């Protein structure tokens, strides 16, 4: 096959292309997040796979659910919130991977997905911040050190089920936030409502 592409990418894609690329990434990660949550549930046993199972939405350190009024905020603000949440997700996903490594050491695909998800969400967060920077909207400065280690220690000592619930909660948050980011970037993408 004759290569059709150029051999080097443009050094700094312009804003529209960057938004488009980030939006595509958010869409892709949303798909991946759905698959991750499905895979996670499959490996946790009952009651996680039962229909109607809805564990309490326990608060997770450094990360909260998207606020109900999120959609009403200006896009840059929403993106800032998205970026903050995306920045908090990787250490939590790492914690979940470690816990699952102990609980389901043979679930290699799940472990690999968790590892990839942490890396990918980092990339998405960086891309959102780059968009914010391109938009002239600075992020909110240095974030506090994530308390993931404390979360892992406390959860591990609490028992297996809380560890599984934590993972379920983190995976769910991951899906919500990348989905939210996709929607927010869709406001900026060409053809979007924004």
């Amino acid at each position, binding site marked *: *096959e*004759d*290569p*059709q*592409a*150029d*051999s*080097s*990418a443009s*050094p700094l894609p312009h804003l529209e292309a960057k938004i488009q*690329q*980030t939006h*595509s*990434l958010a*869409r*892709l990660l949303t798909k991946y997040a759905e698959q991750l949550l499905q895979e996670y549930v499959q490996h946790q046993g009952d009651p996680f796979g039962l229909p109607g199972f809805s564990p309490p939405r326990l608060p997770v350190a450094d990360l909260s659910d998207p606020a109900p009024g999120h959609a009403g905020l200006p896009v840059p603000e929403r993106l800032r919130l998205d970026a903050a949440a995306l920045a908090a997700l990787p250490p939590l996903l790492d914690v979940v991977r470690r816990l699952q490594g102990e609980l389901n050491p043979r679930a290699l695909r799940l472990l690999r997905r968790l590892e*990839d998800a942490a*890396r*990918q969400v*980092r*990339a*998405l*967060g*960086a*891309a959102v911040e*780059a968009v914010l920077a391109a938009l002239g909207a600075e992020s909110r400065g240095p974030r506090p050190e994530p308390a993931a280690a404390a979360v892992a220690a406390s959860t591990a000592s609490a028992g297996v089920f809380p560890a599984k619930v934590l993972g379920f909660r983190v995976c769910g948050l991951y899906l919500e936030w990348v989905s939210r980011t996709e929607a927010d970037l869709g406001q900026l993408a060409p053809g979007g409502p924004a």
Partner: protein
Amino acid sequence: MPTQILQIAFIQKYLCKMFTLQTWIVQALFIFLTTESIGELIVPCAHIHPESSVVQLGSNFTAVCVLKEKCMDDYHVTANDIFWKTGRVPVPYEQYSVINRTASSVTFPNITLINALLTCNIRMFGQINRSVYGIRIISGLPPEKPKNLSCIVNEGKKMMCQWDPGRETYLETNYTLKSEWATEKFDDCKAKRDTPTSCTVDYPPVYFVNIEVWVEAENALGKVTSDHINFDPVDKVKLNPPHILSVNSSKELSSILKLTWTDSRFKSFITLKYDIQYRTKDASTWNQVPPEDTSSTRSSFTVQDLKPFTEYVFRIRCMKEDGKGYWSDWSEEASGITYEDRPSKAPNFWYKIEPSHAHGTRSIQLKWKTLPPFEANGKILDYEVTLTKWKSHSQNYTVKDTKLTVNLTNDRYVATLTARNLVGKSDASVLTIPAWDFQATHPITDLKAFPKDNVLWVEWTAPNESVNRYILEWCVLSDKSPCIPDWQQEDGTVHRTYLRGNLVESKCYLITVTPVYDDGPGSPKHIKAYLKQAAVNVDSSHTEYTLSSLTSDTLYMVRMAAYTDEGGKDGPEFTFTTPKFAQGEIEAIVVPVCLAFLLTTLLGVLFCFNKRDLIKKHIWPNVPDPSKSHIAQWSPHTPPRHFNSKDQMYPDGNFTDVSVVEIEANDKKPFPEDLKSLDLFKKEKVNTEGHSSGIGGSSCMSSSRPSISSSDENESAQNTSSTVQYSTVVHSGYRHQVPSVQVFSRSESTQPLLDSEERPEDLQLVDNVDGSDGILPRQRYFKQNCSQHETSPDISHFERSQQVSSVNEEDFVRLKQQQISDHISQPYGSGKMKMFQEVPAVDAFGPGIEGQVERFETVGMEDAVDEGMPKSYLPQTVRRGGYMPQ
């Protein structure tokens, strides 16, 4: 020390490719070699600087050997005693430089490609050389900056990057592919030794995130990094090919096919474009769907402007719509057939008038050509033929064949023909069949036929009138087969065409061109032509030429043409027919056949000559010559005329078998034992009639039917004359008549009895013979037969018989008078069977049987003597077998 140097050289072979390890080992070796005593601390006698020995090609390299004081003292040497070697070759002194008392250097200017051991040696007292240290020198080049770094992400697989490493370094060079995001670095990808120009990363690609990639090349002489490339992996993707689901035709439109496929799952994230190609099934080149029609993501496409009822093959590939990345591989091919359309052209239509005996009618064979697929546009179901006579109803025919024979009146007809397929009918071909008295006119002119490019072209000048079409017919001209024309049709505008048939070379074709007008066919024109004629070039000095390789019994046409530089001119044509047989061909067949026949005959004659005895016995056996018989000699009543001729027949005196049979005279009373035997014989005769063998047969078990003496006189005579059991001796009475006891000399021969055979009245002389008392002699006789098929005449046997037998002339005369012709062949079979029953022990056909026979004969004769009765005639001295004339 020479041994130690050898060890170095030996080790050198194994250290060539492992530079680092080599250096270490070489140094260790020298440490070992220069150790002064085992168990002491290992201290080398000298050192070479630099220890690193990888040298860049083309550079100058200088090494310094520094002796240890202790060695200098121990061996009484200084730097002046140092000399250098590369491998086993001493380095010229011009390259040396003594720096001080302990150090000597060597310089290699503009070093070339090298991989050798450089040793520092000392020459001790007594001209003893010793290596004191060594390093391996390897030359090479630093890596060039890798160029043309590019990456590809095969969908579902990990990213692979490749690059151009540049020039050969001659050194072990490591290439490392490095990659990172803005947020993190990925693990290095080290190129394998066997594929130093590419590397596949370990992590899965993440699309829509730019990644920066570069290559580091490093060897002992340096390290260099390629340019960094930054790209989104989605722009380097090579998607999986689409999978064609279906190719569907449309009943409404026969020129389209709809192609549907499934894409990569990736299509929900990126826009794709497609490349669709198609071709007819038998074609080799592909047609391309315009790219602009397939430049967006889709899952189906309708290809247009296709031929009806034609199978097309499709393939498709895809890539990112913006052109970044790579085309996928082609999909698997899929095919579909466009729907049928009505035939696009009317069939070619012509007719032939066949001979008809009915008055006032004609037999017309209408014929037409099948439409080629691209004109049939489907499967032709049938043809419709309509025949219309002037002011008359039409006759319609539906035909599946391509010809139709109809009987028409002599009137003018108009025939139309249409071809029909599933969709519809073709246009009609119209053909006017003129009335029988129609005079065809307006022929074409200037008809020419000539071969060109392996086809036979026909060219003509059109008549002035408007021609609808032309019909070209052709057939092979041959004396052996009739002209069966093939034909084709051309439009009325055509004046030149070639014959589209399977024409063969060296055949004369009669070509007819007929113009067809509105009112019927015009006058035809004919021409003869060859697709290819055998042509020979003959030198102008010759005035004759022999044509060879001609087919027998074939009509040939010869034409001479003379050529000059300016051109040629054909001479007149003449024809000849080759004969059926070549000259001398008949003779070549007949003579060998005759010779073979003669040879076979000659061989047969020779064979018969060599085997004449055997043949003579089977075909013309010895016939007893009555004239030579003892009885004949003895009997004064025997007319000598009967035997004269036989004297000459057997000059050698051979006859096959002779035995003595005693037969009692009819008038003598048999002894009771004899009567018993006689009864037994009679019974046996009844039982075995038709099975016993003639005595003259060569086989004792022969069952030759005619050998049995029949009770019927005539039959007996006939049998005797036909197969003639000359040895068949009547030993019992005819129909219970008691035969007289007689002694016969007999022959095994089945030869006709000649005179006696021809004169049954003569045979009557011995008819009245009764052999009731001749059992034992008969047994002997049979045993003799069984054991000796070709026994020589045993004269002594007869002589003995003669001695022991009494001669009774009166009996003999009475015997002659008795009518015993019926007995000639009568009871022999019986006797024979009886003999087998009675003397089974004698049945052994082995050696010594002759002696046994003789013994039996003696016994038999003794019996006869003991009885003291003249029961038999005197021994019949028969020299050549056979009966005495009776």
